[in-house]
């Protein structure tokens, strides 16, 4: 196969993987804690005079979410960049778009998953990556991620709904569902990051050609 671009050395991925996994683990713990507090408190936990502990955990959760997003997106960029450096061809999203698609409405339902799947496959066999089988954990991760986001979006919309009485309570239920779903999504993404990082680091260190 003709390759027109000169091969660049792989960029180190484990230095980003470790903090990304740590933050994802923290995110999972906080989400599970928030859900447990909400279920224990019952209806009204998110009201102004609701659970103070929940409010504190939710604030911490938001801060950790932003930090996690930044580190994980940096990891995604670098992991995708590395598979291009490995000489994998016919890849869909570029490193920039592997990140950018998360911010494009509707496109973010499909394209980030495609980019992650290609990164996984090309990390295992960059030369003939299209026939590499992917682990089901990618599909499970994406299912939980989308379900959590959809539940979160519904909760947010209902929270500002004034015409429909009882919207606040339903918003709380969707909010709790979002927390319950983000925990497995975070743990599965930790596993994905671990596997891809391990494959790329082995190549970077010359353990496999």
């Amino acid at each position, binding site marked *: *196969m*003709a390759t*027109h671009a000169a091969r660049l050395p792989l960029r180190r991925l484990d230095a980003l993987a470790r903090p990304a996994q740590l933050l994802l683990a923290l995110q999972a713990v906080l989400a599970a804690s928030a859900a447990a507090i909400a279920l224990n408190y019952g209806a009204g936990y998110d009201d102004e005079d609701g659970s103070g502990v929940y409010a504190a955990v939710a604030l911490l959760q938001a801060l950790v979410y932003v930090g996690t997003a930044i580190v994980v997106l940096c990891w995604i960029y670098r992991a995708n960049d590395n598979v291009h450096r490995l000489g994998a*061809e*016919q*890849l*869909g999203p*570029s490193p920039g778009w592997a990140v950018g698609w998360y911010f*494009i*409405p*509707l*496109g973010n339902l*499909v*394209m980030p998953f*495609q980019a992650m799947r290609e990164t996984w496959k090309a990390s295992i066999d960059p*030369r*003939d990556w*299209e*026939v590499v089988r992917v682990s089901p954990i990618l599909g499970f991760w994406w299912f939980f991620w989308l379900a959590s986001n959809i539940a979160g979006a519904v909760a947010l919309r209902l929270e500002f709904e004034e015409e429909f009485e009882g919207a606040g309570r339903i918003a709380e239920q969707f909010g709790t569902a979002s927390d319950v779903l983000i925990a497995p999504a975070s743990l599965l993404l930790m596993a994905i990051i671990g596997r891809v990082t391990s494959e790329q680091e082995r190549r970077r260190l010359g353990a496999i050609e």
Partner: protein
Amino acid sequence: MSTSIIDGTIEDIDVKRARGGFVVYNSIRFRLPDGSPKSVVKSVVAKDVADELQPGASGRFYLFSAFDLKGIHGFRSAGGKSVYKFPGNNAKIFIFVAVVNVLWVALRIALDGQIPFLGVGLFILGVVGYVLMSKGEREAKQQFEADGGYAPASGAPVVQPS
């Protein structure tokens, strides 16, 4: 968007469907000059190019990947035959989606002052899709034309005998 080249021979093709001037392949398996296999899956090819993609076809294959569409847009055979056609009219579909939705958003704002989020989302997606698809088509054409001087090494088989 990316373009790439495969020099080799088609060993096997698995057609999913052929309709409306396009052929969609489940997979196309190549044998490269060094004897290794290379597969391309879920690719879209215009009929003019697809007619040349048969088991045993040998030469240079030009591939593209744009947005969520992948395929082969050109082929130069070892015998000197050359064919190019970019598959799909997705760029036009995306610009249509963008225009319809910007009109819808404008209408809703004018009529009831509401911003329809779905319309805004589809408008952004349409613009991004149009930019990526039209860029992809342009780069594919440039790649094929820039390689006009391609000729397989005389007397050398494109695929080494195993």
